[in-house]
C-alpha cells in the first residue's frame, strides 16, 4: 500500500477519533450541567430554610484555622489579612505563612499589626522547610504569622497545618478575598455531616469590583477583555463542573484559592505534596485514594455560594503562565494517582472522574490541538467534505456557546451576583466571543502545561499582584 494511502487512512481514522472524543466530552459536559443545575437549584431552595445566625450562636460549630501562604506579596498582604480578620465565625485563627519572601512582606506585616515573636509549640507530623519564628499580634489575638525558609506553597501550607490549633483548616491564596460570612457557609457541611473531609467554595473574579477595606462593596465587570473571558470561565467551571462532580462525591479539584479541610484526615493522608505544582488538586485526589483504600466513609463537598474573590491576570503572558501551571498541576496530580484509573476499588472516582479527567481534561489539549490541524489537512486533501467540516466546527462552537451561556442562565436563576443588566449582557457577549480565539489560545497554554508535566519541569511561576483597589 502506498505511503500516501496509509497516511490518508490514518488521518481519516484520527478524524473519526476526534469526532468520537468530541461527542463524549460534550455529552459528559451536558450531563454534568443537568446534574449541577438540579443540585444548585435545590441548594438555593434549601438555603431559604437555613438560619446562619443559629450556626454562629451554636456551641456545636468547629473552630477553623485560616491558612494564607505568602511569597513576595507586599502589594496585597496587609489588606488581605485585614479582610481575613473581619470574617464572621465564632472561633477562628488566621495564620499567614511568610514563605521566605525576598520583598517586604514580613516587614509590612510586622509594622501593620505590631507583631511580636511568641513561644508556640507544635507536633511536627508533616515535612516542611524550617520555621524561623512565629509572631502574634497583641491587637489581633487571632492573627499568627509564621516566618519560614522558602519551600513553595505546598511546603508553606504544611507548616501552617502543623502550627494550626483547630480541627479544620481553610487554605487561601495571599490575594484571596473572602466574603464575611463565607466560613459559616463553607463550614456548615462539616457541622452537619461528620463524614465530610473537605469542602470547596466558589471563586469569583474580583477585577472590576469596588473593593474597600478588604471588602467587596460593589460587584462589576472589568474593562479588560481577558478578565471578562475569565469571569465566564470561572462561572462555568465552578457552577457547573465542580457542583456536578461533588454531587456524585467524585470532586477531584478544590481550588487552592479557597478550600476547607479536616486537619486529621489531611495529616493522615500525608499533607501537601511539595513536589507537585498543582498541590491543591493532588491533595484532593490523594484524599480520595487514601480514604477509599482504607474503606472509610467520607464526603468531599462543594458549596456554591460562599464566595472567595480573586484577582485575574489581565495580560496574556501572566495568564498563559497561570494556565500552563494549572494544566501541569492537573497532569501531575492525575499521574501521581494513576493506579486509581479505571480501578473499581475506587468506585465512581476510579471509574468515572479519573478517566474523564485523565483522557478529557489532561489529554484534551492534545486532541483538540491536533484535531484542528488534522481537520485542516483532511479538508485540504478532500478526506472530509467541506459540509462535514463546517458542520463539525459549527457544532463545536454551538456547544461551547450553550455551555457558557448556560452557566450565565444558572447564575441568573440562583445567585444573581451581577446587579447590573448591562454587566450581564457584557458577560453574555464574552461567553459567545470566547469560542473564537480565546478557547484555542487556552488549548495552547494547556498543551504547554501538559508538556512541562510530562518532561518533569518544575516552575511555580510567580504571579504579578496589583493589589485590591477601587476600579478605574
Amino acid at each position, binding site marked *: 500500500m502506498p505511503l500516501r494511502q496509509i497516511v490518508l487512512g490514518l488521518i481519516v481514522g484520527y478524524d473519526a477519533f476526534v469526532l468520537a472524543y468530541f461527542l463524549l466530552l460534550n455529552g459528559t459536559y451536558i450531563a454534568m450541567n443537568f446534574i449541577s443545575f438540579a443540585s444548585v437549584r*435545590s441548594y438555593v*431552595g*434549601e438555603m*431559604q*430554610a437555613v*438560619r446562619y445566625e*443559629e*450556626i454562629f450562636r*451554636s*456551641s*456545636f*460549630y468547629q473552630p477553623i484555622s485560616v491558612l494564607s501562604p505568602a511569597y513576595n506579596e507586599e502589594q496585597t498582604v496587609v489588606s488581605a489579612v485585614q479582610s481575613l480578620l473581619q470574617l464572621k465565625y465564632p472561633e477562628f485563627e488566621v495564620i499567614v505563612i511568610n514563605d521566605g519572601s525576598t520583598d517586604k512582606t514580613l516587614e509590612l506585616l510586622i509594622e501593620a499589626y505590631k507583631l511580636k515573636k*511568641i*513561644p*508556640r*509549640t*507544635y*507536633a511536627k507530623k508533616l515535612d516542611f522547610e524550617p520555621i524561623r519564628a512565629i509572631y*502574634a499580634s*497583641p491587637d489581633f*489575638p487571632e492573627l499568627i504569622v509564621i516566618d519560614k525558609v522558602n519551600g513553595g506553597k505546598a511546603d508553606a501550607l504544611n507548616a501552617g497545618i502543623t502550627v494550626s*490549633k483547630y480541627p479544620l483548616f481553610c487554605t487561601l491564596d495571599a490575594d484571596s478575598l473572602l466574603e464575611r460570612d463565607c466560613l459559616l457557609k463553607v463550614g*456548615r457541611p462539616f*457541622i*452537619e*455531616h*461528620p463524614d465530610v473531609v473537605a469542602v470547596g467554595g466558589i471563586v469569583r473574579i474580583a477585577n472590576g469590583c469596588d473593593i474597600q477595606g478588604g471588602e467587596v462593596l460593589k460587584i462589576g465587570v472589568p474593562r479588560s477583555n481577558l478578565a471578562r473571558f475569565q469571569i465566564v470561565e470561572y462561572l462555568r467551571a465552578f457552577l457547573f463542573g465542580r457542583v456536578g462532580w461533588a454531587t456524585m462525591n467524585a470532586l477531584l479539584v478544590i481550588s487552592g484559592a479557597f478550600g476547607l479541610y479536616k486537619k486529621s484526615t489531611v495529616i493522615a493522608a500525608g499533607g501537601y505534596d511539595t513536589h507537585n505544582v498543582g498541590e491543591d488538586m493532588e491533595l484532593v485526589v490523594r484524599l480520595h485514594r487514601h480514604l477509599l483504600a482504607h474503606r472509610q466513609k467520607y464526603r468531599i463537598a462543594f458549596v456554591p455560594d460562599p464566595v472567595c474573590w480573586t484577582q485575574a491576570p489581565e495580560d496574556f503572558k501572566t495568564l498563559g503562565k497561570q494556565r500552563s501551571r494549572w494544566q501541569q498541576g492537573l497532569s501531575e496530580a492525575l499521574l501521581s494517582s494513576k493506579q486509581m484509573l479505571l480501578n473499581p476499588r475506587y468506585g465512581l472516582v476510579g471509574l468515572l472522574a479519573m478517566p474523564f479527567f485523565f483522557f478529557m481534561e489532561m489529554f484534551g489539549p492534545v486532541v483538540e490541538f491536533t484535531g484542528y490541524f488534522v481537520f485542516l489537512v483532511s479538508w485540504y486533501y478532500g478526506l472530509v467534505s*467541506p*459540509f462535514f467540516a*463546517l*458542520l463539525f*466546527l*459549527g457544532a463545536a*462552537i*454551538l456547544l461551547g*456557546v*450553550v455551555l457558557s*451561556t*448556560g452557566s*450565565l*442562565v444558572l447564575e*441568573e*436563576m440562583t445567585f*444573581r451576583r451581577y446587579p447590573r*443588566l448591562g454587566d*450581564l*449582557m457584557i458577560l*453574555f457577549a464574552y461567553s*459567545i466571543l470566547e469560542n473564537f480565539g480565546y478557547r484555542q489560545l487556552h488549548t495552547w497554554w494547556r498543551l504547554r502545561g501538559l508538556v512541562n508535566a510530562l518532561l518533569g519541569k518544575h516552575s511555580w511561576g510567580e504571579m504579578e499582584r496589583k493589589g485590591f483597589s477601587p476600579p478605574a
Partner: protein
Amino acid sequence: MAISSQQTVLIMLTLLAALSIGFLMLIITLRVQYNRRHAYENHLKDLWEPMVIAYLSDEVSDADITAAVGDGRRAKDVFARLISEYLTNLRGEERDKLVVLASSTGLTSHELNALRKNAPWRQAVAAVRLALMGDRQAIPALRDSLYDRSPLVQIASADALATLEDIDSLEPVAAVVLTQTEWNRLKTAEILVAYAKIAPARLLPFAFDASIPASRRALVIEAMGEVNYRQAETVLIDYARREIDPELKTAIVKYAGLVTALEAVDFLVEKTKEDDWLIRSQAAKSLGSIADPVAVPVLISLTRDPVWWVRYQSATALANILPEGLLALEEAAKASPDRFARDIAGQALYEAGEWQERAA
C-alpha cells in the same frame, strides 16, 4: 438535495444567532421578572412595615392589617416573611403581640398550607415560620411532616416542634433524628438541647439505648451537659466506667466538664489515663473547666503526654486553675525535665497572659 458549504455556514450562523438570541432573551426575562418581583415585594414591605410598627404601639388594629394584606397568596408570602423577620429579632411583649397578629391575619393557616403541599424547601421554610409564630395549632401538622419523604422537611419539622416546646413530640422526634446517622448533626444537636432544656430526664434513656448509633447518643449526653443537667452525673459516670464506645466515653467526659461537678474530678483523673488520646485531652479540658486544684498534679504529668493536643489542653487547663495551676505551669516552664512540657507550659503561659490582658 446536496447542501453546499456556503449553505452550511449560513445554517450554522443562523443556528448560532438563534441560540444566542434565545439565551439572551431567557437571561433578560429572568432578570426582568426578578426585578419586578423584587420591586413588588419591596413596595408591599414599605407599605406594611409602618403598619406593623404602629400595631406594636396599639395605633393600628389587626383588622386593619388583615384588610391591607388581603387574601392574595403572594401578598401573604411577603407578609409572612416580614413578620418572621420581626419574630426572629423581637423578644417579650412585642413578640407576643406579633404572634397574635400572625394568627389573626391568617398567616398560620397560610404556612400550614405551605407545609402540606409544596417544594421541600418551601415546606421547610413553612416549618421554620410556624415555629417562629409560636402557634401550637401547628403541632399536629408538624408531627405529620416528621414522616415527610424529604430529610429537609423532616428536620425542619423536628426543629419546629422542639422550638414550640412540644414535649409530647419528644419520642417521635427522637425516633426520627436519633436513628439516622446521615442526619444533620448540628440541627440534631440543637433539637436535643431544646428538649434537654424542658425535659432532660426524658432524654436520658436515649443515652443508654443501644439501638441508637453511638454518635447520636453522644449528642444526647452533650445536650444534657449544655443545659447543666447534673442529675444524670452519677449514672453517666458509672456508665463511662464500663466497656463502651469511645465516642460515648468522650461525650460523658465532656458532660462532666460542662456541668462542672466537683464530684466528677476523680472520674476525670481516671480518664486521663485512657489509651485514647481524644478521651485524655477531653478529660484535661474538663478538669480545667472544673478548676479544682486537686487536678494540678495529674495535669502537670499530662504536659509530658506524647500527643501535642493532650499537652496543649492540659497546659491550658492548668492556666485556668488559679493560682495553683498557674504557679505549677510557671514552674514547669522553667524547670520541667521534659523539653516538650517546658515548651507547652511557656505557650500556655503566654496565651493566658494575653487573655488576662484582653479581659482587663
